[in-house]
């Protein structure tokens, strides 16, 4: 398993996911919910990188290739959670995979911007 490149993001947004459940709703609006699991699903982590060098950008693209795009889950490096004293999503319970392909835009000569969206995978 290839760990995500050790690059600190410029922006970061975490959508914390929800517990899998089914809901039955009556016409009165009353509802009954059935919980199907104990791990959060559809957690999304959006990472923005700005002004990366070509070598840094290649690290991300190579990692994406190694993980066969959105197929293979992986662990995050500590740099991804830089700023947190306690990582909000424990590596003991969740890995991550790419939620979609990576787009690369040119920020300035020889510098690149990208946004990466990851989705958690309970382990």
């Amino acid at each position, binding site marked *: 398993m290839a760990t995500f490149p050790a690059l600190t993001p410029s*922006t*970061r*947004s*975490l*959508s*914390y*996911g*929800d*517990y899998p*459940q089914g809901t039955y709703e*009556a*016409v*009165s*609006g*009353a*509802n009954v*919910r059935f*919980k199907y699991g*104990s791990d*959060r699903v*559809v*957690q999304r982590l959006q990472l923005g990188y700005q002004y990366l060098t070509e070598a840094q950008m290649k690290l991300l693209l190579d990692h994406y290739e190694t993980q066969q795009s959105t197929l293979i889950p992986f662990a995050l490096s500590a740099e991804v959670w830089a*700023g*947190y*004293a*306690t990582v*909000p999503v424990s590596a003991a319970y969740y890995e991550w995979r790419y939620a979609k392909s990576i787009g690369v835009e040119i920020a300035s000569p020889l510098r690149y911007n990208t946004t990466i969206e990851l989705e958690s995978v309970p382990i």
Partner: protein
Amino acid sequence: MSTFPALVPSTRTFVTGAVPMAMQVALSGVVTGFRRGNRRIAQTLGLTFRLLEEADVTLIRNHYDNRSGSFDIFFLSSEIWNGYTTPPIPLLSDFAWRYTGAPTITDVAGHRWEVEVELETVPIDTGDLIFDAGLASASPARTYILDAGAAAAAPARDYTISPPGAL
């Protein structure tokens, strides 16, 4: 049943919801409404907390996990309605709340975070909700007990909101 963390939101949007109903429109254009319940549904409360420290972000995350995400219900703390003389939904009423979705946690300034949550009311059965009352031998069994019953109360309570004497 836990209470939402005592944090004052930076922004707050309350949508009052509506009584569940169905409308039938005749070919003539005459409209007939059929009420299907007597409790408002889809009351939502959008809260944004800005420039939180990590400890406060953790409070919200832990509460969300404690409630199993959007699965379980809870009451609000008075700080959530900060500014209201009379909250539009009383703190302890026949409406409880649940998360409609996951909190969004965004990094802002160094070591500060912004958290957005959206909540929705859940009508609860007032017959099941006992305020500062309820005996261990209460019958029929109550699902929600406020400030009542000991840990070993029988029949067992699914939700004990406050230990005796706390209110």
